[in-house]
């Protein structure tokens, strides 16, 4: 895991090196120290329990993914080296899961959920909470996978695991149970709370200019134009022959022409003689509202394609619009 983390640290250092000897140097160190200290805060959670936050959510929002990656790695290194709380051999894995993957997950979630939100929008607070919650759970999932594959890779002649003893089917639920509830909630509460505090007192730090706080970022017209062109071009999809690889229906396994196409697309590997039992069982669980992208009442396949694409895009835009209305403070337009 050190080998996996090293390129990320190197890139982060390269990206921040130019700024590292300006204000960024003390800012990174202090943020790392702040993260370390907040790890000791006992945060009361709904239900009567307490949890600890790592601070990766707010670090990613304030410092960006690369700065956050460095700051959280520093905090974990101090914890492992100086306080002996993390372990030296596991430091690489801890940094990869929490500092690297956690920072990128938090930053990505915040960017997506807060897209187009005004400075005062409650959606930004929700985005900060989700960023912290998502980051911790992504980290926990990665750790669970690293634990879970160890019994397969390292065991002695009698079958006794040499390192982590639990397979994936136990490691994943065991890790996620605690993180989806207590640890995730602690991180969400801390991220949202600190974000609200910073927005009120240090708005520039969370990327909000006080002067432009009321201006809703506009989607560029060129983006709408490109989206319209892509929509109009969707019927081109019917020019492609055969079924998409891996998107086969049960009936495709009975059709000799489709079987030949599957074999060619699968590098001459013959498809199974019968429909795979899992596919047969699950094929009818969910029937799409627009099966095969073409409604039955539409005779023209190309027009059906276009209509389905417009419906899909409209549905997504509708959900985003409703989300914006719901999370806008005071229901203002």
């Amino acid at each position: 895991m050190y080998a996996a983390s090293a390129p990320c640290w190197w890139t982060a250092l390269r990206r921040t090196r130019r700024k590292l000897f300006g204000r960024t140097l003390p800012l990174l160190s202090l943020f790392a120290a702040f993260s370390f200290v907040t790890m000791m805060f006992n945060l009361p959670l709904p239900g009567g329990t307490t949890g600890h936050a790592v601070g990766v959510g707010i670090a990613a929002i304030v410092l960006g993914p690369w700065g956050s990656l460095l700051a959280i790695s520093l905090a974990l290194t101090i914890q492992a080296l100086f306080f002996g709380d993390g372990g030296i051999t596991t430091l690489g894995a801890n940094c990869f899961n929490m500092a690297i993957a956690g920072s990128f997950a938090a930053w990505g979630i915040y960017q997506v959920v807060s897209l187009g939100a005004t400075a005062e929008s409650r959606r930004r607070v929700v985005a900060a909470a989700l960023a912290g919650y998502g980051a911790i759970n992504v980290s926990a999932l990665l750790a669970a996978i690293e634990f879970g594959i160890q019994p397969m890779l390292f065991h002695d002649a009698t079958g006794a695991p040499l390192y982590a003893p639990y397979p994936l089917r136990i490691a994943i639920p065991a890790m996620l149970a605690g993180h989806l509830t207590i640890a995730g909630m602690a991180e969400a509460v801390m991220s949202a709370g600190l974000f609200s505090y910073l927005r009120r007192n240090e708005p520039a730090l969370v990327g909000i200019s006080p002067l432009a706080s009321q201006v809703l970022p506009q989607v560029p017209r060129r983006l709408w134009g490109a989206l319209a062109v892509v929509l109009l071009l969707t019927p081109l999809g019917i020019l492609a022959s055969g079924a998409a690889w891996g998107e086969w229906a049960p009936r495709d396994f009975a059709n000799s022409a489709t079987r030949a196409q599957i074999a060619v697309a699968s590098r001459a590997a013959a498809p199974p003689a019968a429909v795979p039992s899992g596919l047969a069982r699950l094929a009818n669980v969910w029937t799409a509202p627009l099966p095969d992208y073409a409604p039955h009442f539409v005779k023209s396949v190309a027009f059906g394609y276009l209509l389905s694409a417009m419906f899909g895009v409209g549905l997504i835009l509708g959900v985003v619009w409703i989300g914006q209305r719901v999370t806008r403070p005071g229901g203002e337009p």
Partner: protein
Amino acid sequence: MSAGVMARTLRGFTRALGQTLVSEHSARESGLLQALDPRVKLVGLLALVVSAALARRLKVMVALFGLGMVLAVASRLSLWALAKRVWLVALGFTAMIAAPALFLTPGVALYRLPVGSLAITVQGARSALLLIARVESAVTLSTLLVLTTPWMHLLKALRTLLVPVEVIVLLAMTHRYVVLLTETANQMFESRQSRMVGRLSGHQQRRLMVNTGGVLLSKTLEMGNQVFLAMQARGFRGEVRLLSDFRLRGWDYLAICGFAVAAATAVVAGR
């Protein structure tokens, strides 16, 4: 506010500050490991930690743990303090993780519980013992490094592992501010606790903790600006120089041989 949450947080701060003081004090004792060059100690103890991580045999891990105990005694470290700070904490944490493996690992039944159909398997017991022994030996050896080396010497020694100088500066600054911010947070909680009468609801408790975190973050950022200005005022222009005054002596060469033999033996015997 329930006294529990704030008291536990304050206890955490006190423990962290106490560990810092203990480490600085024990690093200045006149013992075996304290007398070694920090670079030799860093590389040597890390080699032993890695050999403990690679070992597949219980007796090798126990031997490395025993070596750690001998080095601790020779370095005038209290075994009781080591037990309280490291061994019992690691044992409790690892045993909690390892306990279900006794029953969940498939294999030959070693002991069948009188109630229910659960059985401890040979493979489960072996796996749990390996996990505990590995963690205990690795944590003991890495704690020896921290307890016998002043922090700034340890950081300078990291240069031998090709750690970039920027990272060392960042680690040095981070460590300094960890201590400072822990003291600041401690004072903030103590002053809040001394002004508090009655109990707070769960929501109010969360609000208090998050607000304290926010104020601490504001203080952190303000301090960052002050530190930057102080660095500028003292002539900092982006160049970092570490004073490297380490000198290898005869005793260090002997220690290099000792660490190399111990680590190589553990790797070969542990396979």
